[in-house]
């Protein structure tokens, strides 16, 4: 999929390197999980969940830690695909599909373009801010609080339900028809924003001025 993009040649190597790292990282997890599955300590969905979570979190860590921003961007792809897998586990195929299409197909490409057009073309390696240790502390504490509260809550062990796609469509386009319209306007606004900023302002103004005068 990436070979169609006008990327620098180092990308080939990057993809291979990243894939290898991920594979190496995931193998031990895979082995442990497989063992647990075999001795019936976990069920198949749980197996998939833990595997997907491990990949997802590992690659998310890559997004925020990698020095090479191209590697970070590729990690983001893996993370978002992992999120799609989680959606599948939550029995929502449609959203998983949207996730893959919108993110894998759209957002990440957009971000890669952004990277190419800014610093990546000269120097793909970035340094992080000086508040990194504090950032780690705060983020870890927040994660701790959130996890503690998630484990503390008593939800009364509900069961996940499959939502039929036609019901979802009815809900989306009938009950929530107004938000669909609003979000259309929102996309339009975002488009306008990207347009007015990406276009050279002085050139645009000059063109307008000439047309008027």
């Amino acid at each position, binding site marked *: 999929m990436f070979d169609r993009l006008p990327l620098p040649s180092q990308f080939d190597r990057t993809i291979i390197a990243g894939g290898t790292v991920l594979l190496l990282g995931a193998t031990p997890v895979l082995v442990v999980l497989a063992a647990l599955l075999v001795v019936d300590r976990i069920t198949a969905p749980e197996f998939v969940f833990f595997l997907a979570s491990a990949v997802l979190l590992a690659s998310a860590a890559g997004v925020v830690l990698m020095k090479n921003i191209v590697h970070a961007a590729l990690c983001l792809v893996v993370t978002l695909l992992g999120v799609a897998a989680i959606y599948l586990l939550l029995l929502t195929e449609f959203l998983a599909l949207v996730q893959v299409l919108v993110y894998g197909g759209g957002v990440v490409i957009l971000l890669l373009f952004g990277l190419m057009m800014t610093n990546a073309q000269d120097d793909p390696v970035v340094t992080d*801010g000086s*508040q990194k240790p*504090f*950032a780690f502390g*705060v*983020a870890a*504490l*927040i994660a701790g*609080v959130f996890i503690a*509260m998630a484990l503390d809550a008593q939800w009364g062990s509900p069961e996940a339900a499959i939502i039929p796609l036609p019901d979802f469509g009815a809900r989306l386009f009938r009950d929530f028809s107004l938000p669909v319209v609003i979000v259309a306007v929102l996309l339009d606004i975002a488009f306008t924003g990207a347009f007015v900023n990406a276009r050279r302002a002085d050139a645009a103004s000059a063109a307008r001025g000439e047309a008027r005068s």
Partner: protein
Amino acid sequence: MGMQFGMEQVWVLPAIPAVLFVVLALLNPLIPRRGDFLAALGMATVVALVFVVMKDYASVFHGGEFAPEGKNAFSFDWVNIGQGFFTIQFSTFVDGITMVMLPVVTIVATMVIVYSIGYMHGEVRYGWYFAVLCLFVSAMLTLVVAGNLIQLYLAWEGVGLASYLLIGFYWERQSAAEAAKKAFITTRIGDVGLLIGIILLWRATGTFDIQGIIEAAKNHEIGEKYLTVSMLFLFMGAVGKSAQFPLHVWLPDAMEGPTPVSALIHAATMVVAGVYLVARFSPVYAEVLVARDVILYTGLITAVMAASMGLVSSDIKRVLAYSTVSQLGFMFVALGSGAVTAAMFHLFTHAFFKALLFLGSGSVIHATHKQEVESLGGLHRKMPFTAAVFSIGSLALAGIPIFAGFWSKDEILHETLNEAPIAVYVILAGTAMLTAIYTTRLVLLTFFGAPRDHHAFDHAHESPIIMNAPLAILAVLATVSGFFVFDQVGKALGFPGGIGANVFLEHAHHFTEPDYAFASVATLMSLMGIGIGYAYWHGDAKRAVAARGWAPDLHALLVNRYYMDNLYQGIINRVILGAGSLIAWFDKKVVNETGVDGGAQTVSYLGYRLKFLQTGRIPNYAFGMALGVLVLAIVAIGNA
């Protein structure tokens, strides 16, 4: 006509100058003479109406019908919202305290406006000056007749605004601009207290109506501690406006304004608003003695401090300003001793003689363009009339019998002796003597002795009649206004009695003849003060040189004032002047620079430190947000 003018229509009094303000401010260039005569005529009309109102007040009394609710004269709902959430009425309230304030404000204002026609002649923004004076009078009258606290607060801020505009009248001068700002902000600190006090009282009683609040307090509907705190906050407003320690620092600086303004606003009327406020709530203060003690000692500290600073100040207007602060301290001492009548009486007489003194000093400044007493002297030869009236004012201030100040100060001292610890009386009496000393010094250095600045002296001249006429009227008032203490005088004028009988009809304080023994002691103190002042500051070198020739020994004795002078000098130099300088230093360094300016600087410095949190970097900002979330989350979870 059909309608009889009286207490019911008292709202007309502030309305007239308000209309004048609008007319003068908007149409100024169109009116001949920039409208100065309009302001004077308007104020004269108000004075006439005040007398009509007073007549009405006296007649109601004679009818014997004066139920307290009958005094609430005029009201309409100004704000009435939220299904009884709250109502603010615009209402007027008239009683004996109002009856003291109304003539003071209107008469002094009229005198000042007439005087200003001469004094401000040819000045910049001549018309605007009169417009703002009218604004001030309107706000002050609103304050005096206000029936509820919101109205009172609005008027309170209104007089503050007018004062700000007038202190900063010569705003091209940096010092005037700074003084105006200082006055505005310092008094606003007091206003914060006032507003909090008002809100607290509203919280407890559900009303802004002054009489309603007083009734509620008297019926013990408000907890004592709560009431004490509220009343102390209310007093904070008075401290700011009436320039009491430690918020007194703005008043001497306020002398940057035109001198007639100092006479009207910073001597006779606005600065007594605090006294008026406390007097208005005196029935409540009678319930909270702790608050009353605070008032007493605040007044006492202020009286002593300001008097001793008056002793060493060399600017004629600043001496008078310190004197004003000190005399206001006397009034608060009276209020703190529960002697509301004495305080109101002193307010009444002080307004006239202090206005006289300020306008007199204005004439001196007008004639010589000098304010430093060190460079004046001998002016009685050039300005005999001014010297005469100024002396009358000074005698009144020093507390010499028959002059107005004597009667009122005597009342205060008398009440203090009866109602307060003996030490308070002793200190206050000492302060009265100090008053006589610095007054004498001021008169001697300004009008007597040899001229020290010949250029200024040569150009000095007597003021025009338009300035002297108000001085003459005020001189008469400074002499006779003290007699209103006598029931006989009040009755002769158709009132139920003297001021003592008028202020509180229910609890009249009758006064028919002075306590001669007590009065003699006070008079003696004042005379001693004058004597000390005279001994120390009188005379000039020439007379002494001439006398030396024919009897050197005698001369030595005389010129050294029987060598008593050395003793005096030693005492005065080392003790009194030293203390005065020390207090002045304390005031400048500690109260003014460390306390008031320092407070402002501390606040400003905090802002300076805090602004560096704003580093301009996105990750730092996000960090602030995350930290906020974390702290809130941890506290929230621990908050179970």
